[in-house]
């Protein structure tokens, strides 16, 4: 279980507070107006910034000071999720061995993961030889082999068209159902939240609120969310 305990983040004039837990194996959307701090919240959980107050807990263990790579989280960013000079298989392999010294077993797992996202036989290709959707699939394959109990998505599919984005979210939901990992997903599209997330964290007015059930929240939005949704 992920717990944010009395968190306070300050960056110049910007402030964000958070104090809640996320149950295991839930899929959570993080929505709110731009600039409210959705990405900041994910950066905190991933370990890219330290709070001025409060603790980040994973299963009651304090990980506030843990380095990003040692946290139980796999993360995908808005862009630059693949290294352009490495092949698809190498990009996935980085999720297993950061130094890329892959054993036979590792290589087999990489191939399996690529096959699972529908890219069997594409391992030798560089990202430039793949379509946008295929590149997203490679990144998802890496999340799969990383096998972390927490998956953080900072709008990695925002550059894809609507149909392709829906396809990726469905694939992601399927994979998460298999691994049982918890998902925190930043989105500016309420339809994304409805599509994959049982729960939603609303970030607005300097606070990240505790997860609520997605459908009721979106059907009866509080004023801050209503202003954003229009």
């Amino acid at each position, binding site marked *: 279980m992920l717990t944010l305990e009395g968190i306070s983040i300050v960056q110049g004039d910007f402030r964000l507070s958070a104090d809640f837990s996320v149950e295991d194996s839930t899929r959570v959307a993080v929505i709110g107006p731009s600039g409210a701090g959705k990405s900041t919240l994910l950066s905190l959980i991933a370990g*890219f910034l330290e709070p001025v107050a409060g603790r980040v807990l994973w299963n009651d263990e304090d990980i506030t000071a843990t380095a*990003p790579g040692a946290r139980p989280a796999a*993360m995908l960013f808005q862009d630059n*999720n693949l*290294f*352009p000079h*490495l092949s698809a298989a190498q990009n996935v392999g980085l999720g297993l061995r*950061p130094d890329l010294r892959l054993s036979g077993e590792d290589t087999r797992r990489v191939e399996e993961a690529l096959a699972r996202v529908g890219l069997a036989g594409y391992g030798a290709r560089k990202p430039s030889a793949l379509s946008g959707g295929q590149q997203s699939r490679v990144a998802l394959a890496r999340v799969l082999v990383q096998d972390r109990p927490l998956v953080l998505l900072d709008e990695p599919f925002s550059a894809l068209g609507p149909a392709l984005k829906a396809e990726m979210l469905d694939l992601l939901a399927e994979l998460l159902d298999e691994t049982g990992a918890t998902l925190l997903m930043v989105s500016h599209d309420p339809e994304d939240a409805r599509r994959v997330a049982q729960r939603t964290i609303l970030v607005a007015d300097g606070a990240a609120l505790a997860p609520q059930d997605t459908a009721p929240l979106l059907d009866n939005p509080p004023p801050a969310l209503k202003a954003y949704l229009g």
Partner: protein
Amino acid sequence: MAERADAVTCWPGRIAAALVAVLVLGTLLAVALRAEAGRGLGPAEWSAIRFTLLQATLSALISAGLAIPVARALARRRFFGRRLLITLLGAPFILPVIVAVMGLIAVFGRSGLVNVVLRWLGWPEVSVYGLHGVVLAHVFFNLPLATRLILQGWQDIPAERFRLAAQLGFGPRDVFRTLERPMLARVLPGAAAVIFAICLSSFAVALTLGGGPKATTVELAIYQAFRFDFDLGRAALLACVQIVLVGMAAVLALRLSGRDSFGAGMDRALRRWDAETRALRIVDTLWIALAALFLVLPIALVLLDGLPGLAQLPLSVWRAAGVSLIVALGSTALMLCLALPICLAAASGRGRLEAVGLLGIAASPLVIGTGLFIVIYPIADPFRLAFPVTAVVNAVMALPFALRIMVPPVRDVVQGYGRLSATLNLRGVPWVRIVLLPRIRGSLGFACGLTAAMSMGDLGVIALFADPETATLPLQMYRLMGAYRIEAAAGAAVLLLALSFGLFWLFDKGGRGHADA
């Protein structure tokens, strides 16, 4: 609130920057402590200072002045080979000074082309030695640099302005007044100041074409105090003078320029409606042809004179070539060991370290050499350390250029992939191997090529340290010229040229191979 440093550690960068600072500032201190200030500056020293300032001023003014029409012609004409010519303007940067000097002697020397023509016309001959020669060589090296800087200024004027000028029916004079003169007022002082600063530290040119009481630069005077009189106190005093001169010039140059000289987009020629008259076309063609001739002819003559002698080069030349190769490669490796950590630290926001790396611009090789000599002399025989010292000094001198080339791409990698690498726990040496080096390959190759070529052609600190038995290729070539073994020297010049440009080409090519996405 602290943003966590992503995949990058900064302590190696701090150590590298500290090493550079110790080398540059430590040798300064050694020189200052050893200088016999009580003795004051004699007439010979004052004469060296006057000559240094005079030749640097003349070189800067003439280079910048001649560069204006050449850059203007290049900016407003499109012709076959234009891109090649602009690329060629970058070549003097890695052209060994001693080779260029030999070429200039072949054109302007006593039995050179120009004097042959002058004699035939019955006119007085020109001399390539003394003030003329020093300024001539400096213009040869810096006219291309000035042209590139000023051309960049021209290209920075938006094409829309020229279109508007054409629409308003501006003639060349109106265009000059409203568009070109303001640009030149902005660009010229910086270009001239940079060239002035470069020419202040001129050693190899003064060594070969200057000399004598009337044409000795401060750097050359340091060398003479050292080699001829072995007067360390006087050498150190002169080194202090040099530090003050170069320091002031560097500050001036930074104030006035501050613009990147490795600008991109130089291959765009504007359509210039105001310049489409026959007279202007002829003028521009003449300027371009003259500039190209001035730059290409000396080197062509070196090749012509040297190629036949290449087969029977004395063994000493081959040995010196081997030494130079090792020194150049060692210097390149050292540069990388310093530059990569400093780049990484600078890329994660420690800009001050980068500034330390730039010390090499303000430092003069002869001053560092003098300082090292003073430090080493009580402990070991400095002459036995000639090659390592040369490699170290060359690496530090190349460092500012390498940083300028490599910091931006390293910053891109750290900013673009730092977080992804951190979430993948990809850090340290594997990160450098898997992410950094492949991503910055192009700039890495370019920086290594520049360093290797500059070190290969360097005739500076080695002249201080070498004993008669040891030499790098440029020094050996200088000795052959001094002994009037002109054929062997010409052959050595071709070899040196081939090695310098060959090294640059190999490294640069190596960086460009396997173009990835």
